[in-house]
């Protein structure tokens, strides 16, 4: 595999216009019929490139502000340390044999870069950056949808709010790095504790929420037991308090359900919260 010169081709520079490849857009459209543009699209484009030119191999190296250098190989194959070392980290499309025109490589690289950025933007918009669980926006939307289903079909679910005890004191005394790590561990424990179909979210600084599908209030004990178990050593540093509310039993209105769970949480904490 020969590293190729990166940058715009002479054709593209000469015309002053970006060059478009029909097959690239067809691949994009094909991908959009089954998914949104993301990492899967990058592999589809590389596979298509290999097929079109009967290549032995193709690798695209992208650069991302958050991720640094990223390598993708046709067929989702591993890139050996030897190959990674030979290719380096300069963005570009590398083909074996080196027969793909510059203009086509530029187009592939641009499409792949766009796709990676889109995937990350979509992921970031829906997830909390520290814990990688759902963020407040995703949670609100999921709670709304669950309440509608509960109201219309009578499907039961339980809203669990969890609040870390004395988190501010830990943050102040041990530092924000330890505090962030604790939040990460709590987020990880939540992800390990929920079942498929449940939604775990970080909805505030040290406030978390879970929507337990097909569960009424009594079923949340299983979740809290799993959460305690998965917290592991972090339990020695921090505890948590939960408040629950079930739909349709308590309410089918998202705001009211949240208010009830919140009130129960603060009641357990012994705080009069209004």
């Amino acid at each position, binding site marked *: 595999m020969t590293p190729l010169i990166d940058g715009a081709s002479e054709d593209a520079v000469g015309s002053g216009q970006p060059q478009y490849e029909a097959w690239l857009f067809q691949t994009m459209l094909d991908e959009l019929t089954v*998914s949104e543009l993301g990492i899967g699209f990058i592999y589809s484009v590389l596979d298509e490139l290999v097929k079109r030119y009967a290549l032995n191999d193709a690798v695209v190296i992208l650069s991302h502000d958050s991720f640094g250098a990223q390598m993708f190989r046709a067929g989702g*194959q591993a890139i*050996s340390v030897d190959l990674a*070392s*030979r290719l380096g980290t300069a963005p570009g499309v590398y083909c074996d044999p080196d027969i793909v025109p510059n203009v086509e490589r530029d187009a592939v690289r641009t499409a792949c870069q766009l796709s990676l950025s889109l995937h990350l933007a979509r992921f970031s918009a829906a997830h909390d950056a520290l814990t990688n669980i759902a963020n407040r926006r995703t949670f609100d939307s999921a709670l709304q949808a669950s309440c509608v289903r509960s109201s219309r079909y009578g499907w039961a679910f339980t809203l669990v709010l969890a609040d870390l005890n004395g988190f501010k004191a830990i943050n102040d005394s041990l530092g924000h790095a330890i505090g962030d790590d604790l939040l990460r561990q709590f987020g990880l424990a939540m*992800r390990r504790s929920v079942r498929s179909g449940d939604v775990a979210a970080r909805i505030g600084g040290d406030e978390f929420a879970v929507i337990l599908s097909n569960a009424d209030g009594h079923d949340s004990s299983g979740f809290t037991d799993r959460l305690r178990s998965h917290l592991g050593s972090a339990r020695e540093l921090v505890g948590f308090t939960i408040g629950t509310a079930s739909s349709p039993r308590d309410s089918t209105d998202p705001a009211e359900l949240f208010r009830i769970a919140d009130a129960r949480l603060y009641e357990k904490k012994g705080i009069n919260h209004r």
Partner: protein
Amino acid sequence: MMSPTEEDFELELRSLSGVMNVEIRHRENGDVDAVTLITHGQDPSAIRVMATQIVNLYYTDASVIVEDASRALAPRDIQAVRVALVRAEFHAESGNCDVELSYSGKTGYGRAGSGQLFGGAEATLAALRDLGYSLPFYLLTVISVATVRGWPVIVTMRPFADGADMFGIAQADDDVTSSAMATLDALNRFLSKDISTD
């Protein structure tokens, strides 16, 4: 086509600091068998811990392999002394292995008839002699081992004089190529010491 879950899974792994490439290997039934991460410039053991936590969230049975690209030789160093494998073939009808190597524009040929594993390694040594090298060690063992990633071949060579054994490991589509590559893997470490040819 990847599912949105698989895409998010790979994105999470790639978001770990220093991870450059992710390979997800599946079993025949579609379950994820192993995840290989190529990293650069970060502590591989720290990445392995974080990656294992993420992998276990999605696929509880999958193993995690972390390889550090920054430990490989720099490209200039490799080009300076590297012997490249051009061809390695096993001929079932004759039982012979043919190996062709190139080094600094020269080509060397070797042939041996001891099966794919030993034959591949012996033919590689013969090709090196054809290139003009006098190699002060002999072939000790050639074995194929089962790993989660397939059947790599390990070649061991022992110096005639005192010194540590040399090991090489490689995995290709067939045993003869794996054996030739593993022999070169061991020899390239020796050759990178810049010994001169006869």
